[in-house]
Protein backbone atom coordinates (compact mmCIF):
# COMPACT_ATOMS: atom_id res chain seq x y z
CA UNK A 1 0.00 0.00 0.00
CA UNK A 2 1.24 3.50 -0.86
CA UNK A 3 1.50 6.15 1.87
CA UNK A 4 1.55 9.53 0.10
CA UNK A 5 2.64 11.61 3.14
CA UNK A 6 5.99 9.83 3.57
CA UNK A 7 6.05 8.58 -0.04
CA UNK A 8 6.71 4.90 0.77
CA UNK A 9 5.08 1.55 0.02
CA UNK A 10 4.44 -0.53 3.16
CA UNK A 11 2.40 -3.62 4.02
CA UNK A 12 -0.42 -2.64 6.47
CA UNK A 13 -0.41 -6.17 7.98
CA UNK A 14 3.28 -5.71 8.83
CA UNK A 15 2.47 -2.38 10.52
CA UNK A 16 -0.40 -3.90 12.54
CA UNK A 17 1.86 -6.78 13.62
CA UNK A 18 4.66 -4.43 14.80
CA UNK A 19 2.04 -2.41 16.66
CA UNK A 20 0.66 -5.52 18.34
CA UNK A 21 4.09 -6.77 19.54
CA UNK A 22 5.23 -3.36 20.79
CA UNK A 23 1.78 -2.70 22.29
CA UNK A 24 1.91 -5.90 24.35
CA UNK A 25 5.40 -5.04 25.65
CA UNK A 26 4.35 -1.46 26.34
CA UNK A 27 1.23 -2.43 28.27
CA UNK A 28 3.17 -4.89 30.41
CA UNK A 29 6.40 -2.95 31.05
CA UNK A 30 5.30 0.70 30.67
CA UNK A 31 7.72 1.42 27.84
CA UNK A 32 7.19 2.98 24.42
CA UNK A 33 9.16 0.24 22.64
CA UNK A 34 11.00 2.57 20.24
CA UNK A 35 14.07 0.35 20.37
CA UNK A 36 12.02 -2.24 18.43
CA UNK A 37 9.70 -0.01 16.37
CA UNK A 38 12.43 2.28 15.01
CA UNK A 39 14.58 -0.47 13.42
CA UNK A 40 11.44 -2.32 12.23
CA UNK A 41 10.17 0.77 10.36
CA UNK A 42 13.60 1.83 9.14
CA UNK A 43 14.26 -1.68 7.77
CA UNK A 44 11.26 -1.46 5.39
CA UNK A 45 12.32 1.88 3.92
CA UNK A 46 10.65 4.60 6.01
CA UNK A 47 13.03 7.63 6.16
CA UNK A 48 14.61 8.14 9.61
CA UNK A 49 12.93 11.51 10.28
CA UNK A 50 9.50 9.86 9.68
CA UNK A 51 10.52 6.87 11.82
CA UNK A 52 11.10 9.10 14.88
CA UNK A 53 7.95 11.24 14.52
CA UNK A 54 5.57 8.47 13.44
CA UNK A 55 6.75 6.21 16.25
CA UNK A 56 5.98 8.96 18.79
CA UNK A 57 2.47 9.40 17.36
CA UNK A 58 1.75 5.67 17.64
CA UNK A 59 3.14 5.64 21.22
CA UNK A 60 0.47 8.23 22.18
CA UNK A 61 -2.38 6.01 20.99
CA UNK A 62 -0.97 2.84 22.49
CA UNK A 63 -0.30 4.52 25.85
CA UNK A 64 -3.89 5.84 26.02
CA UNK A 65 -5.26 2.30 25.69
CA UNK A 66 -2.75 0.79 28.16
CA UNK A 67 -3.15 3.65 30.65
CA UNK A 68 -6.96 3.30 30.62
CA UNK A 69 -6.61 -0.39 31.50
CA UNK A 70 -4.03 0.42 34.20
CA UNK A 71 -6.36 3.08 35.61
CA UNK A 72 -9.12 0.49 36.01
CA UNK A 73 -6.57 -1.73 37.81
CA UNK A 74 -5.66 1.21 40.13
CA UNK A 75 -2.08 1.47 38.83
CA UNK A 76 -1.91 5.21 38.11
CA UNK A 77 -0.76 7.88 40.56
CA UNK A 78 -2.17 11.05 38.93
CA UNK A 79 -0.37 13.43 41.31
CA UNK A 80 2.99 11.82 40.57
CA UNK A 81 2.28 11.83 36.80
CA UNK A 82 1.36 15.53 36.91
CA UNK A 83 4.68 16.48 38.51
CA UNK A 84 6.65 14.20 36.20
CA UNK A 85 5.20 15.77 33.03
CA UNK A 86 6.89 19.10 33.90
CA UNK A 87 10.32 17.49 34.28
CA UNK A 88 9.91 15.28 31.22
CA UNK A 89 9.02 18.13 28.86
CA UNK A 90 11.89 20.31 30.19
CA UNK A 91 14.30 17.38 29.95
CA UNK A 92 13.10 16.49 26.45
CA UNK A 93 13.80 20.04 25.22
CA UNK A 94 17.28 19.87 26.83
CA UNK A 95 17.96 16.55 25.09
CA UNK A 96 16.87 17.95 21.70
CA UNK A 97 19.12 21.01 22.20
CA UNK A 98 22.03 18.72 23.18
CA UNK A 99 21.59 16.86 19.88
CA UNK A 100 21.62 20.13 17.96
CA UNK A 101 24.83 21.17 19.76
CA UNK A 102 26.41 17.79 19.16
CA UNK A 103 25.69 18.03 15.42
CA UNK A 104 28.19 20.89 15.23
CA UNK A 105 31.06 19.22 17.08
CA UNK A 106 30.88 15.44 16.65
CA UNK A 107 29.47 12.41 14.82
CA UNK A 108 25.96 12.39 16.32
CA UNK A 109 25.13 8.81 15.35
CA UNK A 110 28.31 7.47 16.93
CA UNK A 111 27.99 9.47 20.18
CA UNK A 112 24.25 8.83 20.63
CA UNK A 113 24.70 5.17 19.67
CA UNK A 114 27.59 4.65 22.12
CA UNK A 115 25.75 6.40 24.97
CA UNK A 116 22.64 4.29 24.26
CA UNK A 117 24.61 1.03 24.31
CA UNK A 118 26.26 1.87 27.67
CA UNK A 119 23.00 3.08 29.28
CA UNK A 120 20.83 0.21 27.97
CA UNK A 121 23.36 -2.46 28.96
CA UNK A 122 23.78 -0.91 32.42
CA UNK A 123 20.01 -0.78 33.06
CA UNK A 124 19.59 -4.32 31.81
CA UNK A 125 22.31 -5.80 34.00
CA UNK A 126 21.22 -3.83 37.04
CA UNK A 127 17.52 -4.78 36.71
CA UNK A 128 18.43 -8.46 36.21
CA UNK A 129 20.76 -8.47 39.26
CA UNK A 130 18.36 -6.58 41.53
CA UNK A 131 15.20 -8.53 40.70
CA UNK A 132 17.09 -11.83 40.94
CA UNK A 133 18.42 -10.88 44.40
CA UNK A 134 14.93 -9.85 45.55
CA UNK A 135 13.35 -13.09 44.32
CA UNK A 136 16.13 -15.15 45.96
CA UNK A 137 15.77 -13.29 49.25
CA UNK A 138 12.02 -13.90 49.19
CA UNK A 139 12.48 -17.61 48.45
CA UNK A 140 15.19 -18.13 51.12
CA UNK A 141 13.95 -16.11 54.06
CA UNK A 142 10.74 -17.12 55.72
CA UNK A 143 10.89 -13.90 57.78
CA UNK A 144 10.89 -11.83 54.59
CA UNK A 145 7.62 -9.90 54.56
CA UNK A 146 4.94 -11.58 52.47
CA UNK A 147 3.69 -8.99 50.06
CA UNK A 148 0.69 -8.85 47.78
CA UNK A 149 1.23 -8.63 44.02
CA UNK A 150 1.01 -4.86 44.01
CA UNK A 151 3.02 -4.22 47.18
CA UNK A 152 6.66 -4.16 46.32
CA UNK A 153 10.18 -4.48 47.61
CA UNK A 154 13.59 -4.23 45.96
CA UNK A 155 17.07 -5.42 46.90
CA UNK A 156 18.07 -1.76 47.29
CA UNK A 157 15.06 -0.45 49.21
CA UNK A 158 17.43 1.60 51.41
CA UNK A 159 18.37 3.81 48.48
CA UNK A 160 14.79 4.87 47.77
CA UNK A 161 14.24 5.43 51.51
CA UNK A 162 17.35 7.67 51.59
CA UNK A 163 15.92 9.71 48.69
CA UNK A 164 12.58 9.98 50.54
CA UNK A 165 14.46 11.29 53.63
CA UNK A 166 15.76 14.31 51.64
CA UNK A 167 13.38 17.02 52.87
CA UNK A 168 14.17 19.69 50.30
CA UNK A 169 11.05 21.90 50.21
CA UNK A 170 8.46 21.67 48.86
CA UNK A 171 7.69 18.08 49.83
CA UNK A 172 4.67 16.15 48.57
CA UNK A 173 2.85 13.07 49.78
CA UNK A 174 1.91 10.31 47.35
CA UNK A 175 -0.66 8.23 49.25
CA UNK A 176 -1.57 6.20 46.16
CA UNK A 177 2.06 5.03 45.89
CA UNK A 178 2.37 4.54 49.66
CA UNK A 179 4.88 7.41 50.12
CA UNK A 180 4.23 9.69 53.09
CA UNK A 181 6.61 12.43 52.03
CA UNK A 182 9.13 13.02 49.22
CA UNK A 183 10.85 16.11 47.86
CA UNK A 184 9.18 17.61 44.79
CA UNK A 185 12.71 18.12 43.40
CA UNK A 186 13.55 14.41 43.60
CA UNK A 187 10.54 13.60 41.37
CA UNK A 188 11.39 16.46 39.04
CA UNK A 189 15.02 15.29 38.81
CA UNK A 190 14.05 11.71 37.87
CA UNK A 191 11.55 12.89 35.24
CA UNK A 192 14.01 15.47 33.89
CA UNK A 193 16.69 12.79 33.37
CA UNK A 194 14.10 10.59 31.63
CA UNK A 195 13.15 13.55 29.44
CA UNK A 196 16.79 14.24 28.54
CA UNK A 197 17.18 10.62 27.40
CA UNK A 198 13.89 10.87 25.48
CA UNK A 199 15.05 13.99 23.61
CA UNK A 200 18.61 12.73 23.17
CA UNK A 201 17.97 9.10 22.19
CA UNK A 202 14.37 9.36 20.88
CA UNK A 203 11.22 7.48 21.96
CA UNK A 204 9.41 7.69 25.28
CA UNK A 205 12.44 6.69 27.46
CA UNK A 206 10.29 4.38 29.59
CA UNK A 207 13.31 2.04 29.76
CA UNK A 208 15.01 4.54 32.09
CA UNK A 209 11.98 6.23 33.74
CA UNK A 210 10.22 3.07 34.91
CA UNK A 211 13.28 1.59 36.75
CA UNK A 212 14.20 5.07 38.10
CA UNK A 213 10.73 5.45 39.62
CA UNK A 214 11.07 2.05 41.33
CA UNK A 215 14.69 2.23 42.51
CA UNK A 216 15.18 5.98 43.17
CA UNK A 217 11.72 7.11 44.30
CA UNK A 218 10.44 3.85 45.79
CA UNK A 219 7.26 3.67 43.68
CA UNK A 220 5.76 0.11 43.54
CA UNK A 221 6.45 -1.50 40.13
CA UNK A 222 2.78 -1.79 39.07
CA UNK A 223 2.15 1.90 39.82
CA UNK A 224 5.45 2.88 38.13
CA UNK A 225 4.33 1.05 34.95
CA UNK A 226 0.83 2.61 34.91
CA UNK A 227 1.99 6.12 35.88
CA UNK A 228 4.81 6.04 33.32
CA UNK A 229 2.31 5.15 30.58
CA UNK A 230 -0.01 7.98 31.62
CA UNK A 231 2.90 10.40 31.64
CA UNK A 232 4.08 9.17 28.22
CA UNK A 233 0.69 10.18 26.72
CA UNK A 234 1.41 13.82 27.51
CA UNK A 235 5.15 13.91 26.76
CA UNK A 236 4.85 11.84 23.54
CA UNK A 237 1.79 13.92 22.54
CA UNK A 238 3.85 17.08 22.88
CA UNK A 239 6.67 15.46 20.85
CA UNK A 240 4.20 14.33 18.16
CA UNK A 241 2.84 17.84 17.61
CA UNK A 242 6.38 19.29 17.41
CA UNK A 243 7.54 16.61 14.98
CA UNK A 244 4.35 16.88 12.89
CA UNK A 245 4.93 20.62 12.48
CA UNK A 246 8.40 19.83 11.12
CA UNK A 247 6.92 17.29 8.67
CA UNK A 248 8.21 14.17 10.45
CA UNK A 249 4.89 12.37 11.11
CA UNK A 250 2.98 10.12 8.71
CA UNK A 251 -0.19 9.88 10.78
CA UNK A 252 -1.78 7.25 8.50
CA UNK A 253 1.08 4.81 9.25
CA UNK A 254 0.76 5.61 12.97
CA UNK A 255 -3.03 5.07 12.91
CA UNK A 256 -2.64 1.66 11.25
CA UNK A 257 0.08 0.61 13.74
CA UNK A 258 -2.11 1.75 16.60
CA UNK A 259 -4.92 -0.64 15.67
CA UNK A 260 -2.58 -3.57 16.44
CA UNK A 261 -1.03 -1.77 19.41
CA UNK A 262 -4.44 -1.11 20.99
CA UNK A 263 -5.15 -4.82 21.29
CA UNK A 264 -1.59 -5.65 22.41
CA UNK A 265 -1.62 -2.87 25.02
CA UNK A 266 -4.86 -4.20 26.57
CA UNK A 267 -3.44 -7.72 26.76
CA UNK A 268 -0.10 -6.48 28.19
CA UNK A 269 -1.71 -4.22 30.79
CA UNK A 270 -4.08 -6.98 31.95
CA UNK A 271 -1.18 -9.44 32.24
CA UNK A 272 0.53 -7.29 34.91
CA UNK A 273 -2.05 -8.35 37.51
CA UNK A 274 -0.73 -11.93 37.36
CA UNK A 275 2.93 -11.04 38.15
CA UNK A 276 4.73 -9.62 41.20
CA UNK A 277 6.94 -6.50 40.94
CA UNK A 278 10.32 -8.35 40.96
CA UNK A 279 9.08 -10.77 38.27
CA UNK A 280 7.98 -7.87 36.04
CA UNK A 281 11.43 -6.25 36.55
CA UNK A 282 13.22 -9.54 35.81
CA UNK A 283 11.23 -9.97 32.58
CA UNK A 284 11.95 -6.32 31.71
CA UNK A 285 15.76 -6.79 32.04
CA UNK A 286 16.46 -8.27 28.54
CA UNK A 287 14.56 -5.48 26.73
CA UNK A 288 17.13 -2.66 27.07
CA UNK A 289 19.86 -5.20 26.21
CA UNK A 290 17.96 -6.05 23.03
CA UNK A 291 17.86 -2.33 22.24
CA UNK A 292 21.65 -2.10 22.81
CA UNK A 293 22.26 -5.01 20.41
CA UNK A 294 20.04 -3.43 17.72
CA UNK A 295 21.92 -0.12 18.00
CA UNK A 296 25.34 -1.85 17.99
CA UNK A 297 24.40 -3.72 14.79
CA UNK A 298 23.20 -0.50 13.17
CA UNK A 299 26.44 1.30 14.10
CA UNK A 300 28.53 -1.58 12.75
CA UNK A 301 26.55 -1.61 9.48
CA UNK A 302 26.89 2.14 8.98
CA UNK A 303 30.66 2.00 9.50
CA UNK A 304 31.18 -0.81 6.96
Amino acid at each position, binding site marked *: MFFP*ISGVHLDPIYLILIGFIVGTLGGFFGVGGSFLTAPALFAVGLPMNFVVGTDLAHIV*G*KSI*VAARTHRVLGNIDLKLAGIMVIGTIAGSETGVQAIELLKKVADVDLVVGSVSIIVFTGISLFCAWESWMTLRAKARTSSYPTLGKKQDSTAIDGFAKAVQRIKLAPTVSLPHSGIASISFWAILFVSFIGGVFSGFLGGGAGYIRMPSMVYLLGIPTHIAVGTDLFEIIISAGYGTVRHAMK*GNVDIVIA*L*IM*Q*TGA*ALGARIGANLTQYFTGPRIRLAFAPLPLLGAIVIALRLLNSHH
Partner: protein
Amino acid sequence: MKNVKKSTLFHLIIELTIYAVFVSVYLILVLHFLLDWLKELFTKQREVYAYVAILLMIGQAVGLERVTSILVHLTRRRTE
Protein backbone atom coordinates in the same frame (compact mmCIF):
# COMPACT_ATOMS: atom_id res chain seq x y z
CA MET B 1 -9.07 -24.72 36.50
CA LYS B 2 -9.05 -26.34 33.06
CA ASN B 3 -12.51 -24.89 32.38
CA VAL B 4 -11.38 -21.40 33.41
CA LYS B 5 -8.38 -21.62 31.01
CA LYS B 6 -10.63 -22.86 28.19
CA SER B 7 -13.10 -20.07 28.84
CA THR B 8 -10.33 -17.40 28.88
CA LEU B 9 -8.91 -18.72 25.61
CA PHE B 10 -12.39 -18.80 24.07
CA HIS B 11 -13.00 -15.17 25.08
CA LEU B 12 -9.61 -14.15 23.69
CA ILE B 13 -10.36 -15.79 20.33
CA ILE B 14 -13.77 -14.08 20.18
CA GLU B 15 -12.16 -10.76 21.12
CA LEU B 16 -9.49 -11.16 18.40
CA THR B 17 -12.07 -12.09 15.73
CA ILE B 18 -14.36 -9.16 16.53
CA TYR B 19 -11.38 -6.86 16.64
CA ALA B 20 -9.98 -8.07 13.29
CA VAL B 21 -13.34 -7.56 11.49
CA PHE B 22 -13.91 -4.21 13.14
CA VAL B 23 -10.41 -2.91 12.39
CA SER B 24 -10.54 -4.03 8.74
CA VAL B 25 -13.82 -2.17 8.11
CA TYR B 26 -12.59 0.85 10.04
CA LEU B 27 -9.29 1.04 8.16
CA ILE B 28 -10.93 0.77 4.74
CA LEU B 29 -13.29 3.63 5.64
CA VAL B 30 -10.62 5.83 7.23
CA LEU B 31 -8.11 5.33 4.45
CA HIS B 32 -10.74 5.90 1.77
CA PHE B 33 -12.00 9.18 3.21
CA LEU B 34 -9.00 10.68 4.97
CA LEU B 35 -5.89 9.86 2.95
CA ASP B 36 -6.17 12.61 0.31
CA TRP B 37 -7.35 15.22 2.80
CA LEU B 38 -4.46 14.49 5.17
CA LYS B 39 -1.92 14.64 2.33
CA GLU B 40 -3.33 18.03 1.32
CA LEU B 41 -3.11 19.33 4.89
CA PHE B 42 0.44 17.97 5.26
CA THR B 43 1.55 19.85 2.15
CA LYS B 44 -0.32 23.12 2.59
CA GLN B 45 -1.11 23.65 6.29
CA ARG B 46 1.50 21.89 8.40
CA GLU B 47 0.36 23.36 11.75
CA VAL B 48 -3.26 22.34 11.20
CA TYR B 49 -2.00 18.90 10.13
CA ALA B 50 -0.06 18.58 13.42
CA TYR B 51 -3.14 19.22 15.56
CA VAL B 52 -5.42 17.10 13.35
CA ALA B 53 -2.85 14.25 13.59
CA ILE B 54 -2.77 14.22 17.39
CA LEU B 55 -6.57 14.55 17.62
CA LEU B 56 -7.04 11.64 15.21
CA MET B 57 -4.66 9.49 17.24
CA ILE B 58 -6.37 10.31 20.55
CA GLY B 59 -9.82 9.84 19.01
CA GLN B 60 -8.91 6.48 17.48
CA ALA B 61 -7.30 5.23 20.71
CA VAL B 62 -10.27 6.18 22.89
CA GLY B 63 -12.81 5.05 20.28
CA LEU B 64 -11.23 1.66 19.58
CA GLU B 65 -10.82 0.99 23.29
CA ARG B 66 -14.45 1.87 24.05
CA VAL B 67 -15.93 -0.08 21.17
CA THR B 68 -13.91 -3.23 21.82
CA SER B 69 -14.71 -3.05 25.54
CA ILE B 70 -18.43 -2.89 24.75
CA LEU B 71 -18.19 -5.69 22.17
CA VAL B 72 -16.23 -7.94 24.53
CA HIS B 73 -18.62 -7.21 27.40
CA LEU B 74 -21.63 -8.08 25.24
CA THR B 75 -19.99 -11.29 23.96
CA ARG B 76 -19.08 -12.40 27.50
CA ARG B 77 -22.62 -11.85 28.72
CA ARG B 78 -24.00 -13.95 25.89
CA THR B 79 -21.51 -16.81 26.26
CA GLU B 80 -21.71 -17.04 30.09
